[in-house]
């Protein structure tokens, strides 16, 4: 039971979007899919859900190819940034249409969510603001009976209260009925503790793929006087640095050299997910301006 993405290669107008990408999405886990603008997050989700076809590579669910395959596509719901619902449709019609094609729909939960978010289900989709379109799509995503729910930018246009409500409802429905969620977002801090496993896309490749807690135990900030810090991190995987007055911080991803004595002047702390992401995905140019 899992979705396997193997050796996916995709180019658009001659520009590489994804390059030899491999990953596995397991049942009943909450994943974070992180990447900078244009890193290929939406393209990846679109390829997995067969909305676009990759130039090469394969996507399978339980060893069945997913390309143009109803039986696997019916177990997956992708809430995309692009609005695919007709502007003329009323919200409750959309609920019924979803029920028709997915075979079922949690109408009671949808009504409860619509009430909490203040969404009028008699309104037409086209009349909604950006935030409420997102809310409408989110409600459908949380009520559809699919094993794999992909949420591309799930909090786009949502205010802080609605985001809070969404995260709570996500955990609630996940606890009641465990299934897989893949959340693609730029608001890393808000989901950092929510996701169990993280994928980071950078430069068309997967630069990070692992359990969040495992990854964070290997991410360090080494702070202290420049010479001491440089001496200590010599040969380690330094992914970024910051300077403030005489204090230097080196960000390290990977194991530290335990044989090396830690000078009294230097402190070692763990990095949080957002800081790790920023340093991993900074381009060289941005890193240079950051230093100055």
């Amino acid at each position: 039971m899992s979705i396997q993405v193997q050796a996916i290669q995709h180019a658009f107008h001659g520009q590489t979007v994804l390059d030899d990408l491999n990953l596995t999405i397991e049942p009943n886990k909450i994943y974070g899919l992180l990447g900078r603008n244009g890193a290929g997050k939406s393209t990846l989700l679109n390829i997995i859900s067969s909305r676009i076809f990759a130039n090469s590579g394969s996507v399978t669910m339980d060893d069945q190819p997913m390309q143009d395959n109803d039986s696997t596509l019916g177990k997956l719901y992708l809430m995309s940034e692009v609005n695919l619902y007709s502007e003329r449709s009323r919200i409750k019609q959309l609920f019924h249409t979803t029920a028709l094609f997915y075979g079922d729909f949690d109408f009671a939960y949808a009504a409860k969510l619509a009430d909490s978010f203040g969404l009028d289900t008699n309104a037409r989709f086209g009349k909604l603001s950006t935030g409420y379109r997102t809310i409408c799509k989110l409600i459908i995503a949380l009520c559809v009976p699919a094993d794999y729910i992909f949420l591309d930018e799930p909090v786009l246009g949502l205010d802080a209260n609605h985001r809070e409500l969404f995260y709570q409802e996500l955990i609630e429905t996940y606890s009641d009925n465990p299934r897989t969620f893949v959340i693609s977002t730029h608001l890393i801090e808000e989901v950092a503790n929510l996701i169990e496993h993280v994928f980071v896309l950078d430069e068309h490749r997967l630069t990070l793929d692992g359990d969040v807690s495992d990854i964070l135990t290997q991410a360090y900030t080494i702070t202290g006087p420049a010479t001491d810090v440089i001496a200590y991190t010599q040969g380690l995987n330094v992914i970024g640095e910051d300077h403030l007055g005489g204090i230097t911080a080196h960000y390290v991803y990977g194991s530290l050299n335990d044989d090396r004595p830690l000078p009294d002047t230097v402190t070692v702390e763990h990095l949080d997910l957002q800081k790790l992401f920023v340093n991993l995905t900074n381009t060289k140019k941005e890193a240079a301006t950051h230093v100055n």
Partner: protein
Amino acid sequence: MQFNFNSTEPIYLQVADQIEEAIFTETFAEGEQIPSTTEISKEFHINPATVLKGMNILVDNQLIEKRRGVGMFVIASAQSRIVAKRRDQFYTDYVKKLVSEARKLHITQAELAQLIERGFSES
């Protein structure tokens, strides 16, 4: 219960620490039910698996127990167990640090003893 998630300690350890602290201060009394995994997850946006990992540390340390179909409860002897543990650690966690800091500040042993006496009399 108050959680403070700005620290860089792994979240599951923080969950365990915070619940332990709540049992120690008797916010969760012995024999009482503590909030469910889902409740804690929802409130603090933490993955339920992470919360469960934290709770399992406390189960292993015999501070809480799972009652099937009901939830997690504080074990009768949990508070005294925490007190005993913290007494054991008091010397390394507090006294050693106190003395080391006092040395840096050139506070003599006699002066430190005086300060401790003052602390007891004022509180």
